[in-house]
C-alpha cells in the first residue's frame, strides 16, 4: 500500500480506538445524555433519507 494511505489508515484506526475508550470511560449518566442526542440525530436522518419515523426517548414524560 502507498505509505501515505497506510499512515492515514493507521491514524484513523488509532483515533477511533482512542475515541471509543474515552467514551467508554464516561459515567452512565453522561452516556445516556449522549444517547439521547444520538437518538435525535438518528431520527432526523432516518426521516430525511427514508421517511422512517423513529421516536427518541422523552425521559421527562410521566409515568
Amino acid at each position, binding site marked *: 500500500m502507498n505509505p501515505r494511505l497506510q499512515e492515514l489508515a493507521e491514524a484513523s484506526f488509532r483515533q477511533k*480506538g482512542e*475515541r*471509543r*475508550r474515552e*467514551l*467508554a470511560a*464516561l459515567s*452512565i*449518566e453522561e*452516556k*445516556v445524555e*449522549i*444517547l439521547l442526542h*444520538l*437518538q435525535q440525530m*438518528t431520527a432526523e436522518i432516518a426521516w430525511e433519507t427514508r421517511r422512517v419515523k*423513529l*421516536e*427518541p*426517548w*422523552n*425521559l*421527562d*414524560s*410521566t*409515568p
Partner: protein
Amino acid sequence: MERTFQVLNEIEAAGLVLRYAIGGAMGLMFYTEPLVTFDLDVFVFVPHSDSSVVTLAPIYDYLRERGCEARHEHVMIGGTPVQFIVAYNSLIEEAVREAVDKSFKSIRVRVARLEHLLAIMLQTGRRKDHARLAEVLDSVPVDEAVFSAVRRRHQLEGAWQEFRRRFA
C-alpha cells in the same frame, strides 16, 4: 431514566418478576461507549415459568394501572420503551442469575455482566451483533477467563472461531 429503573425495581419487589437484568445495547452501555438504541431490553425470570404457558400479563396489568402504555412489544416506562424478555435459554438464564448491581443517579439497577452480553451477541449472530462485538472487544477490557468459560458452557466455541475468522 431514573423512573424507568425505579419501576423495574418496584416490579421485582412486588414479586411480578423474580429477578431482572438489563441486557441489549443499554446493558452494554454500562461498560462501553454510548450506542444508539431506541429500546431497553430487560431479561426476566417470571413466577411459574415451569408451567406450559408463560405470561407477562401480570406485569403489563400492573404497569397499565400505573399509566404505562403498551406499544406493540414494548411498555412505555418513564418515556422509555421497555421490552420484557423471559429468559429463553440457559445463557440468558445465567446472565440474569449472575447480573451485577450498578447505579444510575443513585437508583440501583441490575445489569448483565459484560461477558454474558458479549456471549449473547455471539449466540444471536446477526451481522450487526458481530460488528458491535468486534468494536467492544477493541475498546474495553474483557475478562477473558470468564468469557471463555461462558463460551464453553454454552457451546459457543464454534461461533467464536467463526467470528474470529471473519473479524480478527
